[in-house]
């Protein structure tokens, strides 16, 4: 299991902070991704590497329904978002674009930025140091959508 670096964010990170309004009408996600978290850390997109994880507090992704928010995170190679809780539209959008979102109440208080954690997405568990964290399981339907790689694959596979 490969290790993932942690990027830590506070409570109530809203979708405007993940990707600001002024970039949403750019032609595609690749053109938008360089502006991810711009208002919080203008260099985030440069620093983030494939396989990194975001660890956040409560209500991650609150605010607008812009699917560009989980999409730019996925496009940067973010492996998963682990938060104490998620806002509902972001949560659903993330699954739909194939970005794993994991509810874990305890990890946030234990880790610091750039710590390394091990994520087992299939088992729904996270290891940090000597400690093992179990996470809330997705409803079966959402797990199936995620396993398929997102809602478009689910649709193309004729799962309906």
């Amino acid at each position: 299991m490969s290790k993932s670096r942690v990027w830590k964010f506070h409570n109530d990170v809203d979708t405007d902070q993940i990707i600001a309004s002024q970039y949403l009408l750019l032609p595609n996600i690749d053109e938008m991704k360089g502006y991810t978290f711009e208002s919080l850390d203008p260099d985030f997109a440069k620093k983030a590497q494939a396989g990194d994880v975001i660890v956040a507090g409560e209500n991650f992704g609150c605010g607008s329904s812009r699917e560009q928010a989980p999409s730019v995170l996925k496009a940067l190679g973010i492996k998963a978002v682990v938060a104490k809780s998620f806002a509902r539209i972001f949560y659903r959008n993330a699954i739909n674009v194939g970005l794993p979102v994991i509810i874990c109440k305890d990890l946030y208080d234990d880790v610091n930025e750039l710590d390394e954690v091990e994520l087992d997405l299939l088992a729904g568990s996270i290891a940090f140091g000597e400690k093992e964290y179990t996470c809330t399981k997705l409803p079966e339907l959402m797990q199936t959508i995620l396993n398929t790689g997102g809602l478009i694959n689910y649709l193309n596979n004729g799962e309906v």
Partner: protein
Amino acid sequence: MGMTIGEKIIARAAGVSEVKAGDIHTVTLDRLMSNDGTTHLTIDMYNNQLKNPKIADKDKIVFIMDHNVPAENPKTAQAHKKMRDFAKENDIVLYEGKGVCHQIMVEDFVCPGELIFGADSHTCTYGALGAFGTGVGCTDLLYAMVTGNSWVLVPETIRFNLTGKLPEGVYPRDLILTIIGDIGANGANYKIMEFAGEGAHNLSINDRLVLCNLAVEAGAKTGIVEPDEKVVEYVEAHGRKAENLFVSDEDAVFEKVYNYDLSQIKPVVARPDFVDDVIPLEELEPVKIDQAFLGSCNNGRIDELRIAAKLLKGKKVCEDVRFIVAPASNAVYLQALEEGIIDILMEAGAMVMNANCSVCWGSCQGVIGENEVLISTGTRNFKGRAGHPSSKVYLGSAETVTRAAITGYIQA
């Protein structure tokens, strides 16, 4: 077991006699709305990623351009062209430059009892007409466009029993901001906020739209006011039929019940950068502003424009302040023209924009600069929401905003 309004709407859309919170159901959507914030991405997915692209029922789909209208740069113009061309090719109704999507949906489409997906978080507005509107991302919207269906997890319902009437100078915007301040930005996460009681029935449709529109700022999946004869009147006056007026059963299960006496509500503001950082206006140290905004799907209707005109008549906007006004739709704009409201606003020095999302969207009109302060009737005050990341947005009622535009300060 009894059901809540939201559960009844989902049961109808799922074609079953009963649902309960926590169930997952496949539902047939009554209507789908998509605006220029994401439609270009939906179209790209439709054209490039689907094995069998087709549209289940074009008559259920409404495209509305309202976020960056008219286009402010060539890339937006291109996104708009994509939307226009796709609508034409697929014979989908398209509104361009006619107002904010939710106001248009309420004026021209929404019926009580409907389940509506909109690719915009403030789709929860439609609960003012007894419908279940909820915001989704563009992939969910695409899935529903192609199949006519989607899935929903039936949310729990939080009931807000409202009594009494709001005092003079206090508005539904103060009420909903007060509630959000009380329960927090995730106080209703994944829940339905149901408003009922004689206090709710005392509210006009305009007022109910204000209330339901901000439900998502407490995390709610939707907000619904118990529909009554005012809903029937509104819907029929707009040329539609009002069937399926659902109310909660007496033995319906609520996750929580809150009681609010409207006569006790005071003017409030939400401070930057969180909608739930709410403080009574009288407790706020005066804040100097650079810009004031009156408009948005929350607060750009005729009632709010009337409030502004009443306060501004014979007065001038403070010379250090830009006061930007954007009516929520052309219907609102035309009515304001007829009532002489636009004359009053312009003579006072306000800039009156076309009907669109304007300053609330923070990317098209009236963007604010470094460290500038905005008082707004918009939906959100997130960091950088109206422009530069260092700028600050306060949220208040139309009266609080207009008074600030005149004096240059947010103050009681």
